[in-house]
């Protein structure tokens, strides 16, 4: 099998995982080989025969689309599948000691979480999403009623609810986990999840490749289209839920543009900010695992970090190739809590990434929550950071 054939097989099995993927891949490989052999018998060289066969096969996307429709991703928890470390890391700046008191004063949009899923129309309505006890709830039946007419497919499986995610290729997944079903008085039977990941909903509505997946519980899996995306469940566990929710609120409810999103915005959560006062790294440029940052925060404060995966890096190429997106930017999110020494440490995933350092905060006022994209290397950070690329893209798991 040459590289072209490999690429075809990889793309045709995109969206499938683990053993299923291997088996479908093998089946298609045998198919391809059969066609190649037929052309060779007709007199073509192996190379030409392969080229001809691949041309006949056409786009692998139809295969992957059809297969993905049939086979959903298994639950994220305990998944043995490769999960892409595609997370939008954000430097969350929390006031000293404020983090613990945020939850009670939290504002959260009750409906706009799913608004974009319905392509910008508020098809689901406020009663179908609820924010109860700082948790985000969604009415699955209502989602189903609203979205099936749009061609979204629901499937049912028999295992416990695990996660809900909205993924848009080339952007950060919006991920809710864990996820279970309960009755909420006055609202009905809802699926519950903690908002624990990033939402790039503004791209979602425009992007035909956006996909919502609820895995687990009765597995109502919604595919708004065929593209699929792995996601990382690592970031959620460390903390910063309130921050994620505020980001969600800002993005969804306030309709921020991308530039605004990367700048400062106000939310009603009353968060003030501090600057990252220094950026230092340990390890050498070519291989390191841990990044230590000195931040002006209290022990326990959550921080998030953005790492832009260098598109020219091995990992960047692999991701771009796997997901076939032009001009996609892949980010990695890491969240950590400030330690007793006032620093945060993040462990890089296996892969290559670039620490981005655009850390200015124009016009930010106390009370603002700030999203920071760290871009490009700076003199303090020393530029590029690389870690050993993996054979496969593997999940980062944190407990």
């Amino acid at each position, binding site marked *: 099998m040459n590289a072209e054939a490999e690429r075809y097989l990889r793309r*045709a099995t995109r969206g499938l995982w683990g053993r299923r993927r291997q*088996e*479908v891949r*093998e*089946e*298609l*490989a*045998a*198919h391809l*080989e*059969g*066609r190649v052999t037929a052309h060779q018998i007709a007199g073509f060289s192996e190379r030409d025969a392969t080229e001809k066969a691949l041309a006949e*096969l*056409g*786009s*692998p*996307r*139809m*295969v992957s*689309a*059809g*297969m993905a*429709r*049939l*086979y959903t991703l298994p639950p994220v928890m305990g998944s043995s599948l490769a999960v892409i470390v595609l997370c939008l890391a954000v430097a969350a700046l929390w006031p000293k000691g404020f983090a613990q008191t945020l939850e009670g004063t939290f504002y959260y949009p009750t409906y706009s979480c799913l608004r974009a899923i319905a392509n910008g129309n508020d098809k689901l309505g406020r009663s179908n999403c609820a924010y109860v006890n700082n948790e985000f709830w969604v009415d699955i039946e209502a989602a189903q009623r609203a979205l099936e007419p749009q061609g979204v497919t629901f499937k049912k499986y028999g295992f416990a609810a695990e996660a809900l995610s909205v993924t848009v290729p080339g952007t950060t997944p919006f991920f809710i986990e864990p996820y279970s079903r309960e009755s909420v008085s006055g609202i009905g039977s809802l699926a519950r999840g903690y908002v624990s990941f990033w939402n790039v909903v503004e791209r979602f509505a425009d992007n035909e490749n956006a996909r919502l997946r609820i895995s687990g519980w009765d597995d109502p899996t919604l595919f708004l289209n065929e593209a699929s995306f792995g996601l990382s469940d690592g970031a959620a566990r460390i903390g910063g839920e309130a921050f994620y929710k505020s980001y969600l609120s800002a993005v969804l409810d306030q309709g921020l543009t991308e530039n605004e999103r990367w700048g400062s915005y106000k939310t009603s959560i009353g968060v003030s900010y501090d600057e990252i006062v220094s950026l230092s790294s340990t390890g050498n440029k070519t291989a390191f695992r841990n990044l230590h940052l000195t931040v002006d925060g209290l022990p326990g404060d959550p921080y998030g970090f953005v790492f832009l995966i260098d598109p020219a890096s091995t990992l960047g190429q692999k991701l771009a190739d796997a997901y076939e997106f032009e001009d996609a930017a892949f980010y990695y999110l890491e969240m950590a809590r400030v330690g007793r020494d006032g620093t945060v440490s993040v462990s890089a995933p296996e892969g290559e990434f670039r620490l981005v350092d655009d850390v200015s905060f124009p016009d930010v006022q106390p009370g603002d929550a700030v999203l920071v994209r760290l871009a490009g290397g700076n003199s303090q950070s020393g530029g590029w950071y690389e870690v050993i690329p993996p054979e496969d893209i593997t999940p980062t798991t944190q407990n």
Partner: protein
Amino acid sequence: MSKGLLRDNFDLVLLAILEDGTKYGLEIIAEARGRTDGYFDLKEGSLYPALHRLERAAYVTAEFAPSDTGGPRRRYYRLSESGVKHLAERRAAWERFNGAVGALWKPKEAK
């Protein structure tokens, strides 16, 4: 034609091809083309998802055959009992439909 109807007919084609034996993807494509004079020119993009769908519906079972060359193994499909039954039902339904439509096609004055 609704999506569901088209898909159902496609399934019927595949089940019918599998009626007389266990076959793998390329064989199925070749036979579909050959037996229908090229009318059904199945593409991988639609064939394999359909075969897998039939497998999940338990109308067919599938197995890899050992490879004698060390290369990728072929996956062979065979009708299951419920597949045989389903095919018979769908065939009967198709023939009823066909018969009804056929009756309507005949011009009134013809005998």
